């Protein structure tokens, strides 16, 4: 679960990390009120998860109740897109915060380092731009340090990072304190990513989080009812919301831009299926893993969800029988499909595992195209989509 900037800053503020004063709103009128109550040079920022909002015109300036109207009007409802996500995202809220008098922009984040199995701090005295860009143009300016949860964070760690990153000596203690609070927040909030970019040094020498990028681990959300109000699962993708509602995990449905609907059991198998469809010249419309068991009712929901995507032109169901026998799986699939509205004409099922031949026979008896291999199924599905 990713947080919008204003949510992240609220989280930071509660953790004692300095953030600029600001308020969020979804209306121009309220934006005017906000500026009337605190007339000061301010920034109006589109609240979207997508990157590149600045370039897209999602960040504008104002200084009083009058001149906030135009930027608020312009940004609220604006669709912001970028190269990775051409569909983009609509800004439903703006965050209006007081402008900082910034002397220098730095970078700080904590995320999970899979190789060391530890949290990793990434810091740079060069910030305000994409850290991968810094890594590319100025790799020496980036300091990475993993922290052993067993010994935890101690202020000297922050001081040595500040020193190594050649941050100004005057902010060493502040930096160490902010990093300590960020580290505590990383665990207490169950975060996968806490990023402050830029971490600004103001003209009067204070460190302040000028932006906030936060991702919370979905698996840990059950411990955090306080985030319930911020859950936007599927707000951008109603099909994902339906998948979650049907009992699938947060990651089991992923919407994609193609036209071949895909359902399989097991994440690795589904990924391999997507790859097979792509190899066969097709474009997957989605990733959907029904899980190891593949119960009939869940399979029916899965078919309904995938096929209600108007882009879907064909459906490829790829099941490995596993513990259950192939004929039993086939009977389950038949039951699932008979109740649904999807035509068996645009459907191909690949079924393998024990008793796979018997399984395929059951499917064919019910007029369902059954194939033997994943690659064959992919080819058929791509052909069906092109018809």
């Amino acid at each position, binding site marked *: 679960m990713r947080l919008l900037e204003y949510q992240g800053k609220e989280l930071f503020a509660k953790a004692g990390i300095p953030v600029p004063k600001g308020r969020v709103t979804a209306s121009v009128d309220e934006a005017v009120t906000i500026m009337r109550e605190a007339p000061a040079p301010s920034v109006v920022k589109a609240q979207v998860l997508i990157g590149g909002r600045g370039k897209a015109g999602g960040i504008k300036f104002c200084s009083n109740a009058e001149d906030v109207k135009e930027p608020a009007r312009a940004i609220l409802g604006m669709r912001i897109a970028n190269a990775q996500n051409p569909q983009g995202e609509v800004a439903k809220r703006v965050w209006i915060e007081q402008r900082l008098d910034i002397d220098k922009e730095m970078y700080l984040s904590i995320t999970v380092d*899979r190789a060391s199995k530890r949290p990793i701090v990434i810091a740079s005295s060069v910030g305000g731009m994409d850290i991968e860009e810094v890594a590319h143009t100025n790799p020496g300016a980036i300091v990475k340090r993993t922290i052993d949860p067993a010994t935890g964070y101690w202020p000297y760690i922050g001081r040595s990072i500040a020193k190594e990153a050649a941050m100004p000596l005057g902010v060493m203690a502040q930096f160490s304190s902010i990093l300590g609070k960020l580290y505590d927040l990383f665990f207490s909030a169950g975060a996968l990513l806490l990023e402050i970019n830029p971490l600004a040094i103001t003209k009067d020498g204070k460190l302040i989080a000028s932006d906030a990028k936060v991702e919370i681990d979905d698996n840990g959300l059950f411990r955090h009812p306080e985030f319930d109000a911020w859950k936007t699962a599927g707000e951008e993708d109603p099909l994902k919301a339906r998948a979650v509602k049907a009992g699938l995990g947060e990651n089991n449905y*992923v919407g994609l831009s193609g036209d071949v609907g895909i359902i399989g059991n097991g994440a690795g198998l589904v990924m*391999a299926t997507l790859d097979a469809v792509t190899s066969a010249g097709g474009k997957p419309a989605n990733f959907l893993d029904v899980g190891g068991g593949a119960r009939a009712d869940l399979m029916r929901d899965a078919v309904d969800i995938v096929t209600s995507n108007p882009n879907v032109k064909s459906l490829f169901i790829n099941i490995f029988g596993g513990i259950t026998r192939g004929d039993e799986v086939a009977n389950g699939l038949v039951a699932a499909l008979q109740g649904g509205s999807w035509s068996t004409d645009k459907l191909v099922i690949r079924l393998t595992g024990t008793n796979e031949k018997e399984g395929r026979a059951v499917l064919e008896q019910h007029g369902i195209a059954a194939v033997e291999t994943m690659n064959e199924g992919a080819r058929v599905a791509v052909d069906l989509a092109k018809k």
Partner: protein
Amino acid sequence: MSIYLNADNKVIVQGITGREGLYHANRMNAYGTKVAGGVTPGKGGQTVDGFAVFDTVSEAKAKTGATTSVIFVPPPFAADAILEAANAGIELVVCITEGIPVHDMLKAVAALPPGVRLVGPNCPGLVSPGQALVGIMPGHVFQPGAVGLVSRSGTLTYEIVDLLTRAGIGQSTCVGIGGDPIIGTVFTDCLRAFEKDEHTRAVVIVGEIGGTDEEDAAKLIATREFTKPAVAFIGGRSAPEGKRMGHAGAIVSGGTGTAQAKVEAFGAVNVPVADSPAQIPALVERILAKAGRA
């Protein structure tokens, strides 16, 4: 004959009174695994399907002599179950549970006593065909043999094993290491173990997008710490950046974890990478034949 698991491992099931735990306890038992009992706190003294239930792993270990545990407890309690087993002197801890918070695993891994082998979480377990099966894999697709397999995936593993078995290629041990970002045993651990296992002649590495575990495996081959012939497969080559593909750990982010990087890493150490699972048996036959000639 195998790595980590052989016919001697005595196994207890944590969460044995749960639906999944009991079902798989029976399946493992049927496969021939020595299932010595199980643990469910507060239910000690009961017997389920003939399996003795204990309150703590310490007690179960003391009474049964088990050295292996397989965990089927719900996500909020699973990290605790791992550490309970590890601190009770269990040597091999296999955690099946999917959905454990990443921070629980960060803390659990940091607290894991040295010398304990944790496989998973969010994994299907491991099988040394003909000897023992610990986890949820479908035992009938496996066949004893000389090819090791290590995989981040579940179903795809069964699929690949099934293809190998049909092609007459048996397996020494197949390890499903799991699809989470933080897991106990990684590719390099398994490769080091397979390197030492005389019986294993080649290894199939089933990777996927996310992390750098495959690149680390390639490095191990580059440094000649793993020298046996290997074949790889990488799932998720068509996945877009920033999306978790089913597995919490299957995500390309910040340019890290791309399939391309992994394919290139294996290519650089002359490990053939299959384009689809179907190619794997033939590739294995080829590297075995090549090794036989060498």
